[in-house]
């Protein structure tokens, strides 16, 4: 009896032991395969989506809310397909920044001017550089730096880059909230950036952050998981609900005039969002003619050039069925400027500059 019980105990212990060994063995297999697939996919991800990340010292960025880690390659295949290298200054330019080289035209704007969804050589900046051979066009456009924000940072940008001929700003809507406009008006021109994003973004340069920054796969996974958790409804264009505030807009434009002090000319490029109506006609969104005309008049009063892309966008669609936004892997006519959109803007800017001069 005792012998039997002992045997049972031994068998029980043995099976327990073998279960533990099996579990450890399986965990080891999971670990090995996990590491293996991570390495393979991380390598492949560099060709699909290697989103640029914030520079370690981006807090020191005075001209935009942040900037990218310099000299890093990037690929972007989620919307359109673009690849290139962030220049030594942390922005998307074919050329590196050389403080001894004169900047003639400074491009300031959001992700539309940043243009990492398209080939870096197709961006407005690159095309303008190719067209205006005697001028150096430099781009500090960066995601999220919308019109009001870019004005907030205009003074430090002028101080740093000292553009000699033009500053080109971009906007897709002439209407902004009173709050946004007031923030721009009330901000003092202290030549220093104190935007929220600079303050709130991490400053860690520890091993984990470095590992994260160097892994395109991890960055993509984080981005995807975040978006999957906060899923959006199918892509639709949302029309601006803001009303055009003539008085505050005038004050903002006057502020631009004060900042530039006649040292450099300012061009505002207005590229409205588009959509198609049920008859297949192109509609311009956020583009009440009256508001745009008022905005244009205010620009004139403040000695700012206003370049409206509306007609060019319409013409290009009616003649060639080409839309300025959207890519072959996204919804038609929505999202960021595609290479045709960049080309149209560069083309119109070139003509405009030629005319002015």
């Amino acid at each position, binding site marked *: 009896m005792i012998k039997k019980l002992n045997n049972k105990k031994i068998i029980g212990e043995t099976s327990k032991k073998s279960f533990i060994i099996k579990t450890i063995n399986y965990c080891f297999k999971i670990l*090995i*395969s996990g590491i293996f697939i991570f390495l393979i996919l991380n390598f492949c991800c560099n060709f699909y989506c290697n989103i640029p990340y914030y520079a370690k010292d981006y807090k020191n960025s005075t001209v935009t809310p942040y900037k990218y880690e310099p000299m890093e390659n990037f690929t972007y295949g989620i919307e359109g397909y673009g690849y290139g290298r962030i220049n030594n200054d942390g922005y998307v330019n074919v050329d590196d920044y050389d403080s001894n080289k004169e900047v003639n035209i400074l491009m300031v704007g959001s992700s539309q001017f940043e243009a990492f969804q398209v080939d870096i050589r197709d961006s407005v900046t690159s095309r303008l550089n190719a067209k205006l051979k005697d001028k150096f066009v430099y781009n500090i456009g960066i995601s999220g730096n919308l019109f009001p924000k870019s004005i907030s940072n205009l003074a430090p940008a002028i101080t740093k880059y000292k553009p000699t001929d033009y500053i080109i700003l971009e906007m897709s809507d002439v209407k902004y909230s009173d709050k946004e406009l007031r923030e721009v008006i009330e901000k003092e021109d202290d030549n220093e950036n104190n935007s929220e994003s600079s303050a709130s973004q991490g400053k860690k340069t520890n091993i984990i952050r470095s590992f994260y920054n160097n892994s395109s796969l991890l960055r993509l996974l984080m981005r995807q998981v975040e*978006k999957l958790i906060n899923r959006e409804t*199918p892509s639709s264009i949302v029309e601006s609900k803001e009303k055009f505030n003539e008085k505050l807009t005038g004050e903002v434009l006057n502020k631009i005039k004060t900042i530039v002090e006649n040292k450099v000319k300012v061009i505002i490029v207005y590229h409205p969002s588009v959509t198609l109506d049920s008859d297949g006609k192109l509609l311009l969104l956020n583009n009440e003619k009256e508001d745009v005309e008022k905005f244009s008049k205010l620009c004139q009063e403040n000695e700012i050039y206003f370049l409206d892309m509306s007609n060019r966008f319409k013409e290009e669609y009616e003649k060639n069925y080409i839309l300025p936004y959207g890519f072959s892997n996204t919804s038609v006519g929505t999202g960021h400027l595609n290479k045709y959109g960049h080309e149209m803007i560069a083309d119109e800017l070139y003509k405009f500059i030629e005319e002015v001069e």
Partner: protein
Amino acid sequence: MSFASIDFLIFFIVVILGTLIIQKFFSKRVKEIFLLLASYFFYGYWDWRFCFLLLFVTISSYFTAKHKDKKEIYILGIVIPLVVLGFFKYFNFFLDSVSSIIGHDLGILNIILPVGISFYTFQALSYVIDVKRGKIEVENDFIRLALYLSFFPQLVAGPIVRAADFLPQLKENRKVTADNVKYGIQLMAFGLFKKIVIADHLSVFVDDVFKVPVAFHWLTIILAVVAYSIQIYFDFSGYSDIAIGCAKCLGYDFNKNFNLPYISQNVTEFWRRWHISLSTWLKEYLYIPLGGNRKGKVRQYINLFITMLLGGLWHGASWTFVFWGGLNGLALCIDKMIPKKKEKNLFDKVIGVLLTYTFICFTWIFFRADSFNKAWQVIKGIFTFQNGIRQPFVWAFIAIILLIIFTIGAIIKSHKNKDKYVEGYYPIVNLNTILGLTIFFGVLVIIVCLAFKGEQPFVYFQF
């Protein structure tokens, strides 16, 4: 909650862990109650009021099947699910159609279409009819019948599981095991890939083109129609794969719902490979009772046509669906009229596949278009070689390539096994090996990396 959501992932993990604990420490009965509550929670997550409707259909089926010998009660068992379906799904359609005919607006009722109503009412019907026919015994256990009708993997978009297939499984002591979970999660991953990586990306392009067909170049319209044929296949078969995988993890087996439909050489074969659970249901509970092929050729054609017409209406309360069903019915009749060659060479087979695929794509235009006018714009755009926006949508080409690869893989596999009938297969790997685990993790990471980020409901939820 949708299968392709974080909410479902959490829900599913809780259900699996809960079932594991219950099967270890409690009786089978507790497990059945737990799964029933989980299924009602899953359904009520959309709208808790739907649960009462489901419960009502269940109670009516339970009692009417018990008194199947009384003709009136048996008829009631058929009529109640049909009335529920008719009211919630077709009442407004009926009002709208009558309004158009009499030229007077009768208005519409504010009715919310309960998710999955077409599926569980059909399951309820199959149960009552099978009991009457003596194919299965009356289920005296209400919990078990309720679980059959509400079992969450198949509740909202099928497959339509017949009582004869599922009730016997519930009586067995099926368990969550490591092997079942390893197999099931691979099916789920495969389905998820089809749904959120391929189908959802294609929906962006398809929606654009079908919204304004007049704006697009004719080649782009053709690409959109092809893209839709793949979208609906990957969307629905993806859902079915997830459902089959979920059930497998819990120890239950569902039959395959799709079997490489686009390699069909004629429309009859297509309907044997597409939405198999619905085709089988329509055949057994509509076509055969109508007389099937037992009453002569003409009656057979009429029966086929009626079956497909009603099949079309089942898909949605719109005349475009009825027309789509009618087109398929007509094609089935023509296919029955054409004498078949006994031995087909490769050329015949390829031509058969191409013609069938082209026809099916043509019918999908009516299935997808919001109205006959939109469908006409699509057709006109193609045949007038319309000029417009050219959109060489990358995901459409990726989907076509993947579909071809999967199909060739299945053909080679069938050829190796010397099967005459090409069968689809699931790419299952051995999760006990490092290679298998590596491939599986790779697929999971790829799904997350390439997932479409917007909310895109399963196409068949609307049915």
